[in-house]
């Protein structure tokens, strides 16, 4: 049997007495976009942190192409093909927009330990970075400092860094939160473009139900750290557990 791209087995983390993610087992297949939904504080971001290695698991495993990566540090998992965009914008504030993306391109190219050549001399890396900036409609802001960008533009840059890693697994954590209405389509189009590629796996944490409905091939629901529903979008959205847990409608019967 072939392995799923990504699998979590009984993945758990405890903060003191609080179990933020509780024994979540789930498999993710390429060519699909899985939406992860749940109320605030459900553990969605924490689940992401466990998968991409920002937090150490208290119990359980993360498997990448069948390989156990639970003990690998975050950078190692990134090199193995996991890419992450953060819910809270997480950039290099005093570097330019282009430098931010360029750092991601360079990480992907494995050129970070080059001490001898000039940063400015790697035309191919710069071109690539410019290209990713153009895809999130940020090309004009290339020389601005990341800290000078508007909130919406910072969100776009966050997404550009993820694109530039060219990962197998894209993890978006509320990519459009706080963006103005006219900026959102750029990002959504990008995500749906990625999911067209048969070898890419997309995980998307998203609160907006219309976005989830239009993009997701599958929805999983987290509630108080537990996986409470998993299935096709229409089915999951209609299920009583979601109506109650996520939308706050009390379940009947």
């Amino acid at each position, binding site marked *: 049997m072939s392995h799923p791209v990504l699998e979590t087995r009984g993945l758990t983390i405890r903060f003191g007495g609080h179990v933020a993610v509780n024994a979540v087992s789930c498999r993710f297949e390429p060519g699909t976009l899985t939406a992860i939904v749940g109320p605030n504080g459900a553990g969605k971001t924490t689940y992401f942190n466990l998968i991409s290695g920002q937090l150490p698991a208290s119990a359980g495993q993360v498997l990448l192409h069948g390989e156990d990566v639970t003990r690998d540090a975050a950078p190692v998992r990134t*090199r193995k093909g996991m890419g992450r965009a953060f819910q809270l914008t*997480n950039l290099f504030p005093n570097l330019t927009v282009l430098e931010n993306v360029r*750092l*991601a391109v360079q990480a992907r190219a494995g050129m*970070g*330990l080059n001490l001898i050549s000039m940063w*400015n001399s790697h035309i191919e890396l710069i071109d690539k970075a410019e290209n990713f900036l153009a895809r999130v409609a940020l090309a004009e802001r290339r020389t601005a400092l990341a800290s000078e960008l508007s909130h919406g533009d910072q969100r776009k840059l966050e997404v550009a860094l993820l694109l530039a890693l060219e990962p197998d697994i894209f993890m978006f954590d509320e990519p459009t939160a706080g963006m103005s209405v006219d900026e959102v389509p750029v990002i959504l189009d990008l995500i749906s473009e990625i999911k067209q590629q048969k070898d890419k796996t997309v995980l998307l944490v998203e609160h907006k139900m219309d976005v989830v409905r239009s993009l997701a091939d599958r929805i999983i629901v987290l509630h108080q750290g537990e996986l409470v529903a998993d299935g096709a979008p229409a089915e999951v959205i209609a299920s009583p557990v979601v109506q109650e847990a996520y939308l706050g409608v009390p379940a009947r019967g």
Partner: protein
Amino acid sequence: MIAGLLSGDAPRSRILSALLLAILVALALAPFLFPGTRPLDVAAKVCVFVLLVASYDLLLGYTGIVSFAHTMFFGIGGYGVAIALSRMEPGWGAIALGTVAAVALSLALSFLVGLFSLRVKAIFFAMITLAVASFFAILASQLSDFTGGEDGITFKVPELLRSRVATYYLVFGVALGLFLVLLRIVNSPFGRVLLAIRENEFRAEALGYRTVIYRTLANCLGAVVATLAGALYALWLRYTGPNTTLDFSIMIDILLMVVIGGMGTMYGAVIGAAIFVVAQNYLQEAMKAFSGAMQGIPLLPDLFHPDRWLLWLGVLFVLSVYYFPAGIVGQLRARKKA
């Protein structure tokens, strides 16, 4: 050609370019422009400290590593050359051997300190370097058979270096060359990762950079250059002792020079070291003249008495840090941008 030498990192400010050029010309022609032992001594010290401070900027300004062990590496270089030259034939072979051994020791120490402690919080790293450096200073004074204890080591130099001018140009040439190497390193793909680590280590890790490797490497590079600066300084002084290399007050001087010049700019090291070393050497005299001229006016002669020079140096630094928090280079570049 010039862009290549400067690694594409132009001064980006006309005043700064002029200042740097003036310092370069002054240092390059020092033996002819300022005849006399004292001025040449000051010029050589500027060269050594530019290099030492630039290597510290690699850590503090570019990588965000706070280390107090920089004078230890400076000292290792000084003692390496001094011990070799005092125990062997005073030739180039001894210099080479002493330098290589010192660099190897610095590499090993900086690697170990880096590997064991760069994972921990910055403040703990700073404490550990402080402890290691203090331990090393005590060790140097205790092993007096080897290091000359508090007296240090005076030694002979090879024939060629008995000429002050020749020695000066060795110091100047090596310092300039290594400065350009540092400038290249900070403007390389590696150098940008260091900036990324300074800006947001968490995100650098998420992009796939194993930051502990980068920090350790930066730490080692800084240590090696500091060691070479120490070797140069020893050759210039023909002496190495605790007070010329290991003293904690030198560590404070380095910190001040980096901050005054402007952290994370490399050129700040040039400006900071030049101003500081010149002030350290000539402020006292300037005050003496001033105090003399003020004779008869109440209070002023006392206030500017040469013995107060340290006080005034302190005042100058507080003012400069207060008014130019980004250092002189940062200030000059910001003005251009505005």
